[in-house]
């Protein structure tokens, strides 16, 4: 089926603007703790979630915001959860890495690789109780080195379960370049388990949608799991406020703090040879350079690419964008409204 690009763009834009609002609230200190954005992953998420039906399940990682929004979780509840409010999605108990929506069969985890087994369990209950449904696992490429994820791929194959293993490959796990810590190639791993593995540009909604559609059909037809490796980038970096990101944005200020201890490590007696130390400094500088260049100044933006496909109808696009922007403004406003005092609660 041809994807409805207008509907997909709306989903993606809604998620992007919601997350932009989250960034702002986090900066203001209204949201605590770590904050990992799904910005840059919208085409992958929209391409899959838009094809789900009632009874399908979602196993999410630490970037659960876009999938939950696109699946139809109330954005006000989600934002209130991030704000740690008792009237949030999970009563302020979970926070952005631990989001759950029972009615959507959506469960997240901050433990790398945990979405693999979670999707397998959802798929098993699906096969036995909700025939024709499937489960999706979203995870990053760095998670492909976590044993439980690989084990769950094998389990899904031998039990012939309807699982979509969706690997969002941005090439980085925090400050480590994933290929430097990953042997072989990820598609071969999937093939090794006896499962189709397909690589696709995760910024291009149309190609991604087509790949997703095939995997969804396989799953619904009882033909078992599929592995999809979709490339993407995280323009907001691994998480908000990471030191490397601050260096990328304000090199002079932040580098000062790093340089002193590094130089002392070069000069202190005992340790590696001077040549080796200089090598290591070079490695660190090049890592910093690469991080700044590649992790934070990303390539394609899935939203921009999709928008280009719709630009012919400029006035419709304008209307849509204005509408979504207004929606998000209202969401933020409502989320920030004072809590209604519960009856019986003493103040």
């Amino acid at each position, binding site marked *: 089926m041809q994807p409805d690009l207008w509907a997909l763009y709306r989903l993606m834009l809604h998620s992007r603007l919601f997350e932009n609002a989250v960034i702002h609230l986090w900066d203001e*200190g209204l949201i605590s703790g770590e904050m990992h954005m799904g910005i840059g992953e919208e085409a992958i998420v929209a391409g899959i979630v838009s094809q789900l039906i009632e009874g399908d399940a979602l196993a999410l990682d630490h970037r659960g915001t876009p999938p939950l929004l696109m699946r139809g979780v109330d954005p006000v509840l989600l934002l209130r959860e991030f704000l740690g409010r008792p009237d949030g999605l999970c009563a302020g*108990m979970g926070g952005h*890495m631990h989001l759950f929506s029972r009615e959507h069969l959506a469960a997240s985890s901050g*433990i790398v690789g945990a979405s693999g087994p979670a999707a397998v369990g959802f798929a098993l209950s699906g096969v036995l109780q909700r025939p024709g449904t499937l489960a999706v696992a979203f995870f990053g490429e760095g998670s492909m080195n976590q044993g439980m994820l690989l084990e769950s791929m094998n389990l899904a194959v031998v039990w012939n379960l309807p699982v979509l293993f969706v690997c969002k490959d941005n090439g980085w796990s925090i400050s480590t370049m994933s290929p430097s*810590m990953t042997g072989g190639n990820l598609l071969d791993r999937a093939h090794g388990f006896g499962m189709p593995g397909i690589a696709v540009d995760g910024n291009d909604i149309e190609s991604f949608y087509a790949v997703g559609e095939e995997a969804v059909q396989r799953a619904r037809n009882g033909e078992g799991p599929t592995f999809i490796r979709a490339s993407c980038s995280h323009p907001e970096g691994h998480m908000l406020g990471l*030191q490397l990101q601050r260096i990328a944005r304000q090199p002079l200020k932040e580098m000062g703090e790093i340089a002193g201890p590094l130089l002392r*490590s070069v000069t202190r007696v*005992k*340790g590696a040879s001077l040549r080796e*130390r200089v090598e290591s400094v070079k490695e660190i500088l090049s890592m910093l350079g690469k991080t700044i260049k590649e992790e934070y100044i990303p390539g394609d933006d899935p939203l921009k690419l999709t928008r280009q496909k719709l630009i012919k109808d400029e006035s419709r696009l304008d209307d849509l964008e204005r509408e979504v922007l207004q929606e998000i403004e209202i969401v933020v406003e409502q989320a920030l409204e004072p809590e209604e005092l519960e009856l019986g609660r003493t103040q």
Partner: protein
Amino acid sequence: MRKLNFSEAAEDALAQAMAQDKHIIYFGEDVVANRRNLLVRFGKDRVRNTPISESAFLGAAVTAAMSGLRPVVEIMIIDFIAVAMDALLNHAAKIETFSGGKWNVPLVVRAACGGGYGDGGQHEQSLWGWLAHIPGLSVVVPSTPADAGGLILAALEHPNPVIFLEHKLLAENWLDFMGTGGRKTVQFDVPVEGARGPAPRKWQQIPIGQAVERRKGSDLTIISIGVGVHRALEAADSLDEQGISVSVIDLRTISPLDKGAIIESVAKTGRLLVVDEDYESFGLSGELAAITLEAGIPLKYNRVCTMGTIPFSRELEDQALPNVQRIKKAAVSLMEN
């Protein structure tokens, strides 16, 4: 004496040990970035990145330790040890016994722990009691920079596995990483004297299993560890104004417990209040009651621990973790009946 931040002290002592002992190697996720100073000084053979494969690299560290190396394995935050628990529970902790005492595992596991910065219940646990439950593992939790350096040095000379836990409210690098993120708009209740303090130029070991009395008092003994020690000291000052004289003992090591120091103080005061950021049931707080009772000391007992799964909401989290108000209330009720 010079002053260092908590993480600086741990790194400084670690570097001193690495300079002296070539067998010490260091690995974990992102250490090239996060432990770049060690990498520069000691080279990439000894300081290495790992994939996100905790069960593999911690398991590998066990046999590396058995065959001549002294690995320090960094498990970013202790909550993540769950995926690698087998290496500790069924291997590292048992090999000395299984081998009839002929083979030991000189391994250090280093991880951040603890809450108080709003990151939710999968990232803020303490788990030290859970780990100390396993025979064969030592667990240390420093509460000051001086102890961080002295205890990591002791861990590096210990013949058997030691878990070294750094509380995120004390270790400035982790608090910045997971809590502050460079923001000026957030504040945390960081114990000043735990986060920065005097540090020797040349580090000496602080023996594993040695508690220290941080405050003398005659009515009541508070026993705590990590950030809890600072909360207890704050509560003790205020209790003092109410005429309650409190002794505060910082365990520093959970396993093995310094039974002598515990029993001596509780025998004097007859009242024990445990302040433990780990979970309440089946853990350190109950263990402390058990050993004092076993020693035949008549005592009154109370505890302030983490209540249930740690909530994400800052407000609820502050109530769930041991705080000064809860400690004062528990102390007063111990004095009353």
